[in-house]
C-alpha cells in the first residue's frame, strides 16, 4: 500500500477514456461500480467539453455481485451499441471490476457486434493513466489497421505531390494539445508538408485506417504515441520524427529533421515565422532573468523541453528536475546528470514538496500540484505539464509547441516573476510598509492566487501548516535551522534576514545555513549572514 495525498495520474482506464473522448465515433463500455462516472467531469468541467464522454459505465452495486455482473456488462454493450451506433467499441474493466474477473473481452465478443470491438487489459493495480492512454491508442490502432497490414503496399504517390505525415499523440485533457496541433500543422504546411491524419484527437476509426498512407509519423507526445509509432515502424515501414518541438532550439531541430526526412530544400525553413523569444531574452529588461534558480517537474517530455528552454533560451539556472513518468525516467536522469543536478523520479507529491522546500528555487515550472506547493512556499510558478486544471485550458490560442509556443512560454514563465526595476526598488526601499511580505508583485494584482474552482469553495483554505518561510515569533531569541538541526539563528541575524525581500529570502536563508554548516558555525549571526552573501554572490 502506498500513502497518497494527491496523485499525478489517474488509473489506466482514465487514460483509455482520454483516448475515447478525444476521438469521434468510438464508444467505451467500462465495467465499473457506481461512482467511477466521476471521470466524466474531468472532461466536461476541466476541459469544458460540450458533449458527454462516450463511455457507458455498468455501475454495478453490491446486490449485483456474484449474481449477474457479467450479464449487466453484456447488456450495457448491446444497449450502448444500439443507442450510440459507434464505428468501433472499446471494452474493459476498472479497478474493482478487474477483481471480479468477469472477462469483458469474451462477453463483448460473444455478442458478435458488426463493428470492431477492442478489448483493453489495463492492470489497475500496476499501471497508471498515461500508460493506459498509450496502450489504448496502440490496441485500437493495431486492431483497426491489422486488416491492412497483410501484404501492405504503400499507395503510389502522384508525381509532384507534397510529402505527408501523421501527428500522433494528442488526447483529450492534454496540456495545450488542441493548440499545439494547430501550430504544428501550420508550421508543416509552411514547410510544404501535408498532415494526413491527426490522432487520436478528433480522429475517426476511418482516419486511423488511413495512417499508413502518410510518408512518416511525428510522435508529438511520446508518453501517448511512442508504443504506437514503434508498431507503425515495424508494420508499415513508416519512419518517425521524435524531436518534440517545444522551445526555439527544439523547434529548429524538429524542422531540420522534417526537412531531411521529407527530402525538402533546407531553404523552406525560412518560410516559418520565427519566434520573438530570442530577442525578448536578449533585450535588456530580461537581464533580471539571469541565473534565476528554477525547479522543473512534470511529464518527461515537457520537463526535458523546459530544461532546455530554461538554460539555453532564458538564461536560468536549473537547480532540480524530476518527473512522475517512470516510463521515461532514464531520459530525465541522463539530462539531470548533464545539468549537474539530481533527478527526482517520483509520483509522491510530498516528496516533490520536500525537494522544492529544500532547494528554495525562485521559480517552479510544474503541474497543478507544483502550483499548490509553490503557492504554499510563496514561490512563483508556471504550469508546463499535465495534470492541469480548468485555468490551464485558456480561451485564447496558447500553444506550447512551435515558435508561437515559444512566445507563449516566454510570457507565461516570466509572468510570476518580479520585473527588473520592481525587484531593484524593493531591494532599495525594503522598509516601505507596502513592500511587506504579504505584498504580491504589483503586476499580478491583489487578488492573484485565488484561482477559480471547478466545483465550489468546498474547502476553505486552512492556515498553512508547513510554511517554512513563515516569520518566527518576535520574542524568540533563537530559532532552529530549516535544513540542519544543529544550527540555530541568532535574533539579530533573524531580524536582518527579514529585511531581505521575501522572494529571495528563502534562498538567502538556505545559503546562510549551508555556509554555516560548511564553516562549522552553530549560531548564525549578522556576520555569518553577510559572510555567506559574500561567499555565494547574489
Amino acid at each position, binding site marked *: 500500500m*502506498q500513502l497518497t495525498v494527491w496523485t499525478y495520474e489517474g488509473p489506466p482506464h482514465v487514460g483509455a477514456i482520454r483516448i475515447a473522448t478525444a476521438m469521434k465515433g468510438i464508444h467505451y463500455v467500462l465495467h465499473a461500480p457506481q461512482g467511477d462516472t466521476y471521470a*466524466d467531469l474531468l472532461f466536461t468541467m476541466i476541459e469544458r*467539453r460540450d458533449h*458527454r464522454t462516450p463511455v457507458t459505465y455498468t455501475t454495478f452495486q453490491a446486490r449485483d455481485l456474484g449474481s449477474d455482473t457479467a450479464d449487466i456488462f453484456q447488456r450495457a454493450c448491446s444497449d450502448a451499441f444500439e443507442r450510440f451506433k459507434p464505428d468501433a467499441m472499446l471494452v474493459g474493466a476498472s479497478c474493482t471490476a478487474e477483481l471480479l474477473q468477469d472477462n469483458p473481452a469474451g462477453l463483448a465478443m460473444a455478442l458478435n457486434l458488426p463493428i470492431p470491438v477492442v478489448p483493453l487489459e489495463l492492470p489497475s493495480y500496476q499501471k497508471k493513466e498515461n500508460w493506459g492512454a498509450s496502450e489504448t491508442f496502440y490496441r485500437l490502432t493495431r486492431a483497426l489497421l491489422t486488416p491492412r497490414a497483410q501484404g501492405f503496399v504503400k499507395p503510389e504517390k502522384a508525381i509532384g505531390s507534397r510529402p505527408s505525415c501523421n501527428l500522433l499523440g494528442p488526447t483529450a485533457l492534454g496540456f495545450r494539445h488542441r493548440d499545439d496541433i494547430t501550430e504544428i500543422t501550420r508550421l508543416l504546411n509552411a514547410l510544404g508538408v501535408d498532415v494526413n491524419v491527426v490522432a487520436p484527437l478528433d480522429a475517426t476509426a476511418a482516419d486511423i485506417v488511413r495512417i499508413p498512407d502518410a510518408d512518416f509519423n511525428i510522435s508529438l507526445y511520446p508518453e501517448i504515441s511512442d508504443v504506437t509509432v514503434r508498431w507503425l515502424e515495424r508494420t508499415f515501414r513508416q519512419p518517425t520524427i521524435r524531436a518534440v518541438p517545444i522551445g526555439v532550439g527544439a523547434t529548429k531541430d524538429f524542422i531540420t529533421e522534417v526537412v531531411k526526412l521529407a527530402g525538402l530544400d533546407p531553404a523552406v525553413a525560412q518560410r516559418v515565422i520565427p519566434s520573438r523569444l530570442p530577442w525578448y531574452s536578449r533585450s535588456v529588461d530580461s537581464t533580471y532573468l539571469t541565473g534565476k534558480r528554477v525547479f522543473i517537474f512534470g511529464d518527461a517530455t515537457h520537463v526535458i523541453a523546459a530544461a532546455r528552454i530554461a538554460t539555453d533560451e532564458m538564461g536560468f539556472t536549473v537547480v532540480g528536475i524530476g518527473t512522475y513518468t517512470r516510463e521515461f525516467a532514464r531520459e530525465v536522469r541522463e539530462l539531470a546528470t548533464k545539468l549537474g543536478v539530481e533527478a527526482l523520479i517520483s509520483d509522491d507529491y510530498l516528496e516533490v514538496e520536500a525537494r522544492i522546500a529544500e532547494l528554495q528555487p525562485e521559480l517552479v515550472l510544474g503541474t497543478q500540484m507544483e502550483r499548490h506547493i509553490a503557492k504554499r512556499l510563496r514561490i512563483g510558478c508556471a504550469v508546463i505539464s499535465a495534470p492541469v486544471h480548468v485555468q490551464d485550458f485558456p480561451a485564447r490560442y496558447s500553444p506550447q509547441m512551435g515558435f508561437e509556443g515559444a512566445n507563449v512560454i516566454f510570457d507565461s514563465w516570466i509572468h510570476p516573476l518580479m520585473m527588473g526595476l520592481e525587484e531593484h526598488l524593493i531591494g532599495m526601499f525594503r522598509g516601505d510598509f507596502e513592500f511587506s511580505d504579504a505584498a504580491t508583485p504589483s503586476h499580478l494584482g491583489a487578488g492573484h492566487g485565488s484561482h477559480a474552482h471547478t466545483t465550489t*469553495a468546498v*474547502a476553505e483554505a486552512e492556515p498553512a501548516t508547513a510554511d517554512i518561510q513563515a516569520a518566527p515569533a518576535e520574542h524568540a531569541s533563537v530559532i532552529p535551522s530549516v535544513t540542519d538541526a544543529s544550527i540555530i539563528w541568532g535574533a539579530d541575524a533573524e531580524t536582518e534576514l527579514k529585511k531581505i525581500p521575501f522572494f529571495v529570502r528563502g534562498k538567502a536563508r538556505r545559503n546562510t545555513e549551508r555556509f554555516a554548516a560548511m564553516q562549522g558555525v552553530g549560531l548564525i549571526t549578522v556576520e555569518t549572514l553577510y559572510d555567506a552573501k559574500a561567499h555565494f554572490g547574489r
Partner: protein
Amino acid sequence: MTVHAPTPAAGCSEPVVQRQRGQRAVFCGLTGIIWMHRKIQDAFFLVVGSRTCAHLIQSAAGVMIFAEPRFATAIIEERDLAGIADAHDELDRVVDQLLARRPDIRLLFLVGSCPSEVIKLDLGRAAMRLDKRFNPACRVLSYSGSGIETTFTQGEDAALAAMVPGLPAAAQSGPSLLVVGALADVVEDQFRRLFTELGISRVDFFPPRRSTQMPAIGPDTVFLLAQPFLAETARLLETRGATRLAAPFPLGEQGTTGWLQAAASAFNVAPSLFDAATAAPRERASRAVARYAPQLGGKSIFFFPDSQLEAPLARFLANEAGMTITEVGMPYLHRQHLAQDMALLPPGTLITEGADVDLQMDRCRAARPDLVVCGLGLANPLEAEGLNTKWSIELVFTPIHGYEQAGDLAELFARPFIRKSRLLVELEPA
C-alpha cells in the same frame, strides 16, 4: 434498463413514484469526505482503495485545496492483492506513517472502498486493532464509502453511523435535542440561537466540530434530522433509545418552520412563544425568496438523481418559488424520513427512484424543462443543447438550510436564468 410501472405512494393526491435500474451517473460515498473532513476539524479520513479512489476525491474536490487536506488514500497495489504483503500489516504501516506526520489528528476513519470490499479486507477489525494501539491519543473507526454500497451523500450517513455506538450515554436528566447531519457552522449558530429563544437550551449538533465534543445520547434524547440521507444513523440513534422527531427538512421558510415546530411540540413550547421567536425570520426568509420570483415563478424544473435532497428542494421550489416540477429524480427515497416533505409536494409530482441515465436524458430532452438540476458530467453537454442547468453538487457544498439561507437557496436556482439574461453573446453554431 428496467422500468417499474409508476405506483401512487398512497392515495391519488400523493406523488407518483416510479423506479428505474440502469447506469447511474452519481458519485460514490467517498465524496462525502470532501465536506466531512472540514466539518470535524481533528478528524482524518484514510481511504483504503485504489488509484481511482484517490483520483475521484481530488477531482471532485477540484484539487484547489490550498492547505494539506485531512484525507488521503492508502492505495492497494499488486503485491497486496497477490498476497506478497499482508494487507493488515501494510495498513498498520501506513497508519503509523500518517499519524507520525499528523500528530494533531484525534479521530481516524478507515474508509472502505469498492476494491477493499470486493477483496473482503476487514476494516472493522483493522480499526479495532489500531484503536487499541492509539486510543486515547487517537480513536480509530471505520465505515464504507464504496460505490457498491453507498451513493454520494450516503457516505456521510455511514461516517456518522460509525460514530453512534461510541457516543457517551446521557444521564437521564430531562429531554435534550440533537440535530443530526453536517451543517455549515454559521447555520448551526443560527439554529442554536433560535432554539435558545424557544427555551430549548440543551441542544447538540452531530457531527461535532471536534471529535472531543461528542454529544451524549440516551432515552431522553430527541433528534431532528437536518439532512434526508441519514437512514442508518437515525436507525442506530433509535437503538440507543433516542427518538426521531418527524418533520419536513429545514429548507426554505415552510420547511424550516415545520422543522422547528417539531422540536417546539416535543419541548412543549407555547404557540405564542414560537410565533414570537419565528415571526421575524419567517418574514425575512419569505422576503428574501420573493426577490427571485421574477426569475423562478412559473418555470419548470427537472431533477437528475444526486443527493436525496431533491424531494425537499422540489417542495421548496414549488411552494415558495412558484416553480413547476417536471420530474424529481432521487437515488433513493426514504419514505419514512421524507413523509412530511412528500405530503407537501404538489399532488401528482413525478418522483423517479434509482436511475437509468440514458432514459432520463431522453425524458429530459423531450420535456425541455426551463431548468435541469444535474451532475457535473451532464451540465455542460445539456447547456450545449440549449438547456439551463444547475450543478447539483453545489446544493450539498453551500449553506442552504434555515431561514437566513432561504434567499441564498432560491438564488442558486435563479442564477442560471439571471446569467442567461445578462449574456448578449450568441453561441456560434458548431
